């Protein structure tokens, strides 16, 4: 039997006290909606990320990298698959409705998948920076998250993302210790991916944020972004790479990195699916969905035959 709470205040107290909410519980509608939207965004992002990764399977340099890209694609699509199920279990939208919204351009997915990966060095920058940033966010959510099924799946996702990060570090080393051309390629990719990675943590938090109120995501966006900047500005500096921020500097008193003013307009554009590569990405995903229709129909007809 699920639990129920007489008033919203009682539910607030339960969550504030460290309580974990399960799908059978009679949770408040506002909570259900907030959790659902958060997981749907994550699921969409895993799917769009997996499709992007997939594009690089034939182009990966060498067998080892190809195996890594294949495994990463399987991971991302598998994560999306699990997350869509957990989201659908909340009863707001079916899995098919979520997918159809996404392919019709009505769904949301993370800003970093609204840009084009131009060369293999972009894939290196994505694996080294974007994957690391995503991991920082996911670890923060996992530590505190009040929704049980999501938290348990995040444990597995984080373990697998950690493995992607090792690939990213290895790829970065190849480029950092590589030829002049390789170093130039990575420097150019860094120019393209630095700001989108900082945007990925989200705009500055608002005090009345429902995600924080119900411990869906407790840490503030700016704190997570800062954690990333402190670590990666140092690492990039040690490899002799400079992010495209002329004001980025180390405070002589605190020793901490301070970034220049962040322009939020590019993030806003991606939120309405109006980023530089949004239209192509959405259309591409919709084509995959249409092209694989015969597989779904074949599976459905087999299932119907078994049932008959």
């Amino acid at each position: 039997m699920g639990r129920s709470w007489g008033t919203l205040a009682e539910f607030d107290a339960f969550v504030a006290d460290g309580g974990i909410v399960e799908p059978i519980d009679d949770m408040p509608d506002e909570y259900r909606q907030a959790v659902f939207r958060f997981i749907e965004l994550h699921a969409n992002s895993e799917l769009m990320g997996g499709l992007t990764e997939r594009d690089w399977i034939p182009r990966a340099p060498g067998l080892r990298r190809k195996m890594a890209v294949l495994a990463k694609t399987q991971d991302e699509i598998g994560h999306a698959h699990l997350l869509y199920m957990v989201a659908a279990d909340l009863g707001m939208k079916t899995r098919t409705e979520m997918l159809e919204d996404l392919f019709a351009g009505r769904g949301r997915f993370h800003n970093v998948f609204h840009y084009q990966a131009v060369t293999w060095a972009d894939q290196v920058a994505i694996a080294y920076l974007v994957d690391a940033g995503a991991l920082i966010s996911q670890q923060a959510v996992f530590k505190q998250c009040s929704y049980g099924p999501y938290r348990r799946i995040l444990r597995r996702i984080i373990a697998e993302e950690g493995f992607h990060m090792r690939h990213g570090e290895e790829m970065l080393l190849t480029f950092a210790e590589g030829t002049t051309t390789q170093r130039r390629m990575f420097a150019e990719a860094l120019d393209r991916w630095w700001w989108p990675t900082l945007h990925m943590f989200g705009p500055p938090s608002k005090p009345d944020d429902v995600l924080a109120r119900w411990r869906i995501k407790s840490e503030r966006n700016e704190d997570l972004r800062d954690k990333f900047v402190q670590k990666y500005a140092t690492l990039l500096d040690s490899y002799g790479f400079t992010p495209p921020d002329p004001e980025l500097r180390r405070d002589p008193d605190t020793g901490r990195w301070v970034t220049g003013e962040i322009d939020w307009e590019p993030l806003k554009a991606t939120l309405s699916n109006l980023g530089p590569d949004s239209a192509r990405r959405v259309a591409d995903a919709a084509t995959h969905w249409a092209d694989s229709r015969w597989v779904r129909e074949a599976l459905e007809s087999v299932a119907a035959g078994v049932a008959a």
Partner: protein
Amino acid sequence: MTTGMIPTASDVVDVLLGVDDPEYPSVSIVDLGLVEAVRAGEDGHVEVDLIPTFLGCPALEFIATDVRRALQHAGFLQPVVRFVDRPVWTTSRITAAGRRQLASEFTVAVRVGRSAPPCPHCGTIALAETSLFGSMRCRSINECQACGERVEIVR
């Protein structure tokens, strides 16, 4: 390893117990059944034979590197670590401790032979397969008919 003593195979296994699988951090490669043979010579030379869970596994080189590093750190200066392709890995090689950790930490169940494993979340034997593949090719996605949990099974 105690300085001055001749290392034994069990000294080597002790070190390997501290090497985790890259995709299941906190579960050791020993508990996952990846360690097939360990040899320690009187001259301090050690060799470790590992078997991959499947041949296309992209983590093999990371695992070999981690094993080499751990052994060197423990004082075995030039360990030889290699992957062998016999015997073939199966889930029956995962130890009871490994299965417990996969269940409690990762909500992942392990199928050994034909018998259905219990749901790692509620303990009931009621997992129904909803998808042949999860985020790894060696895992299926299942729904627990008792508690509703979405569980992956290693097979």
